[in-house]
Each structure stands twice: as C-alpha cells, then as structure tokens.
C-alpha cells in the first residue's frame, strides 16, 4: 500500500492529445476487429466451407447446402416462434417479479439483507443443469414438465437474479426527496409508482429486459431438461443438428449465426429506443 501511495502522485497525468487520436482509434478498431469481426468471419467461412484442411488459409471449395438444409427444416420456424413467445413472456414476467423485490432491496434496511442477496444470486452461482434437474423433478410431480409454462418458469429462475440486481441498482439512485415531493404534491402510492418510480426505472428495466430476453432466447440446458422433446425452443432444435460423428464446426457456425440474430435485432431496436436523453432523464442529475 505504501508503495502505491508513493507512486500515485508521481504518475503522469493522462492527457488526450490531438495527435494521439490516430493511434487510439487504430488500437480500438484493431481490438474490435480481433474480438468481434474476426470470429464472425471465421464462423461464416466455416458455415459455407466445403472442407477446410490445414494447409489452406481460406477454404478452397464452398457450399450453401448446409445452410439450405437447415433453413428448409419445417421445425425451425416453429422452434423460433416458440422461442420468441417464451422469451417475451419470460422477460415481462421477470420484470414484474423483480420490481417489488428490487424495491425492497433498494429501499428498506432489513435483517439478513446480505443473506437474501446471496440467495437471490444463487441460481447464477449454481450450474443451470443442477437447477434444472432439481426443478425438473418438482415439475414432473406438478405436471409442469414438457409444457411451455414449465419452460417459462424454469427460465425465469435463470433471468431473475440479473434483473433484480439491475433494478436494485437503478432504484437505489432514486432519491427519497423525489418521492416525498411527489407525495406532498398530492400523489398517492399509485401515482408515485406510475409517474415517478416507473419512468425513472426505465433504463434499468430496458437493460434488464434486454438481458432477460436474450438470456431466455439462447437458454439451452434448463429448457432442454424440462421441455424436450415436447417443447422445442430454437436452441434445442439447433443443437439436435449437431452430429457427434461428423465435423462439428460448420453446423455449429450456422447455429451460432442463427442464435446471434435475435440478439442483434434486439440491440438495434434498443439502440433506437434508448436515446441519450432518455437514458440521462432516467438517471437524472440527482
């Protein structure tokens, strides 16, 4: 610690110079290319390659047959529809359940709060497979297995922790004075929730909603154990294309591309909705 304290004041202040611009942007673009573009390009090449043996830097022969085979599968559209419906329901249900919990976590001091926090995060810490097997047993007993309801419920277990954490963080930033002001201006509990808390919680709700949506859309192991083979979500359907006795990479690349699609769409939509000023208005100056 002493060493840190001594060296800190001597550290050169980082000032962004005009001539650094080229270097910095080149570095950032290079990093972006290496981490995002390069894997995508490789994935795409694998998905259309007709054999890609080591000496070749790029494949010699190309084929669209794998893509066409997969897209032509009649079950694919149905699975995609299933996934979309499930993801939408999961997202809204998660938000609805998370909001009161997050409110309590953000606003009230209570005994064993730390313990409750860990309890909330438990599904993230424990592998999904373990959760699913445990819940699967209960669902079998309750008759929820092999039903969309069951898949939705088991997915909510996975999406809740993050949503609660995000909402707690957002709600913690709403100052008490705002709520007191609203009340003294004549707003009852409903008015305060509707006009003050919800609008200010929008950024958290959107962020949590996006993550829940994507999390639900791409969730495999829990849905597989509870729903398969009756309920087919997109990941379940896609993973069944994988054949352990042939080359995995081309098919896996196609699966990855299809699963990437909803995430991209959602982020583009979010980018449109989440304008700067809305974000700032939500977070406020206070």
């Amino acid at each position, binding site marked *: 610690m002493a060493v840190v304290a001594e060296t800190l004041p001597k550290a050169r202040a980082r000032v962004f110079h005009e001539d650094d611009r080229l270097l910095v942007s080149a570095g950032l673009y290079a990093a972006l290319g290496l981490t995002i573009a390069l894997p995508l390009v490789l994935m795409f090449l694998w998905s259309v390659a007709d054999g890609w043996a080591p000496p070749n830097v790029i494949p010699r022969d190309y084929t669209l047959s794998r893509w066409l085979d997969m897209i032509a599968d009649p079950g694919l559209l149905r699975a995609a529809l299933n996934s979309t419906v499930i993801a939408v329901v999961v997202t809204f249900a998660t938000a609805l359940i998370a909001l009161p919990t997050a409110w309590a976590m953000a606003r009230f001091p209570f005994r064993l709060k730390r313990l409750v926090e860990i309890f909330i995060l438990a599904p993230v810490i424990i592998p999904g497979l373990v959760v699913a097997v445990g819940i699967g047993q209960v669902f079998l007993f309750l008759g929820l297995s092999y039903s969309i309801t069951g898949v939705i419920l088991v997915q909510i277990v996975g999406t809740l922790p993050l949503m609660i954490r995000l909402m707690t963080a957002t709600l913690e930033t709403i100052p008490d004075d705002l709520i007191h002001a609203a009340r003294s*201006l004549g707003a009852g509990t409903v008015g305060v929730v509707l*006009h003050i808390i919800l609008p200010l919680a929008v950024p958290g709700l959107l962020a949590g909603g996006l993550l829940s949506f994507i999390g639900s859309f791409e969730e495999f192991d829990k849905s597989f154990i509870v729903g398969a083979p009756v309920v087919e979500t997109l990941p379940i359907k896609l993973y069944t294309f994988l054949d352990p006795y042939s080359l995995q990479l081309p098919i896996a690349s196609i699966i990855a591309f299809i699963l990437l699609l909803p995430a991209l769409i959602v982020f583009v939509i979010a980018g449109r909705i989440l304008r700067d000023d809305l974000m700032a208005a939500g977070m406020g100056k206070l």
Partner: protein
Amino acid sequence: MSELEISNITKDYGATRALHPVSINVERGEFVTILGPSGCGKSTLLRILMGIARPSAGEIRLAGTRIDPLPPETRDIAMVFQSYALFPHMSVGKNLSFGLRMKNVPSPERARRIEHALEICNLTGLVERMPRQLSGGQQQRVALARAIVMQPRLLLFDEPLSNLDAKLRDTLRQELVYLHRRIGTTSIYVTHDQAEAMAMSDRIVVMDGGRVVETGTPLDLYRAPTRAFTAGFLGQTNLLTADADGTRARLPWGQLVALSAQAKGIARVSVRPETIAIRQDDTGAGTVTSVSFMGANALYTVGIAGTTLKVSQAGGESLIAAGSRVSLDFNGALHLLKDRELPEAA
C-alpha cells in the same frame, strides 16, 4: 386561533428523543424561521409537518383542522427541498403541472396557475427545459414555483438556499422575501444560517437539542436574547459573569456596569461586540491581543482579567495596535440572561 398550531409534538427514535415537547404557533401569512444547528430537531419537525414522519405524541392543527394523522398527499402543504427534488424526467412545465394534475385541477385553470407561477419566479421561457439543463439557481426557482403553483395553506422550506453559492444565495433570499410579500402564504423556513433567518423572517424560533430555546422577532432576539444559546447563535456576543446587586453589577475586573433587569448575586450577561467602546488607555485593564480590519469596522480581541472579549469598532480613524493597553466602556445596560450557567465556549 392561529393558522398553524403545533402542540406538544414529540418524536422518539427508539430510546433517543429527537424532539422534546415542541409547541409553536404560526399566524396566517407569517414567515417563521426555525433556526438551529444541525441535529437540533428542526428537520425532524419539518418532516412531521410534511407528513413523512409521524410524531410520537402531540397534535398539529392547520386552519383549525387536525392534520397530524393525515398522509402527506392530503395535507394542504407544499415543500421546497434543499436538494430541489425536481422530477428529472419531466420538463419544467411538467414538474409544475404534476401536483395540479394529481389534485385534478381542470386544464385551463392549470395553465393559468402555471403561467402565473412561472412569471413570479422569473422562469418565463423555460417551460420546455429539462431540469438538468438549468443552473442551480434556476432549479431552485422551479422547485419554488412547483410549490407555490399549488397555492397551499402552508409553505415549507428546507434550507432551500444552502446548495447555492454566496452571491446567488443573496439574490434568491431577496427574491424569496419579495415573493412572500406578494403571495402572502404562511411559511415555515428551516435553516442553520442565522443571517438568512434574520434577514427574512417575521419571527424566529431558535431550537437546540430537540427543544425550542426561544421565539421572537429578529430584532428582539438579537437585541434582547434571554438565553446564552440564542445570543451566541444569532451574531457574535460576549458572555460574561457579573456580581449583581439590583440593576448594577460588578464585572470580574472591577468595572461597574448597569444591568437590563434586576438581579442579585451571580448574573450572566450578553454583550454584543458593537456595544463596547474601546479606548486606548495606558492605565486600562485590558490588552489588545489581536486586530482584524474588516473594512467597515475593526474587530479587536481584548484580554481582560483572564477573559477574552470581542469588540467591534465602526469607522475608526486609526487602528489600535495589538499589545496596547485599553479601557472599555459599555454603552447602555448589559443584557441579563436567564441561563443558570454559561456554555463553555461562547
């Protein structure tokens, strides 16, 4: 019957008592300041008035109606917060119309009242702005406009100027006084700033340790405080012990002075620095220990018979150098306090 009657309000947090029975009456149209150091219970009292805290005992009546069991939204009270508490996701206009919409004021009436509030708070032309696009002073004006647009029976101010810089604070203080004169709403202003309290209020309620110490007009409290705490909190003072007999008393260094009231034995008095005349005198009992020239006046500290006195002299031709021997003259009678003992450091 007073407009606002606070009777024997107490507040306990577990075993600690934040408010001892507090009773304050405020007349209609009056501007009353509750003044005290932090932790004196003034904010607790304000929260109780607003309705976000429940008193442990006692009652509050506003215009004859008991309000202490009512939730905040049904009380006819508006508040201006120290943090402004503007709704960050609403424009200035929306902030102002929020309360009116909540209370179902019809739209044309709403527009008229908002227009009026904007005009008297110098906010015309800022209706469309978001709070974060405004300066601190403008934000505080919006907070004020949002409160007065409600046309409440009672306006509460919670140190509304303490987040502003000194110059802006002065301007807004004057605007507030002017505004109060114009709209005449009964107001309670909470602050720890004695200058603010004296400049604005019809009456000041001095609080300390959860109790009301003293109540009076700024002039009375400054000229004739009955408690050492008031004397020390409102401006500067010297607290002295004298040996009294009737209306005359002997100070520790033997000087005979007049008292403001009858006393016998040990008497505690408050002497304002500006009521002491200082005179260079080689045979005087005092020694100047420091001099600070403030422009309009000079502040001296004088050591005399083991005590230190603050003396302020206005418009002197020349300064008395530190180390000089001086004698002190007291203009008029020394002000007798009711305290049994004096606080350690004044």
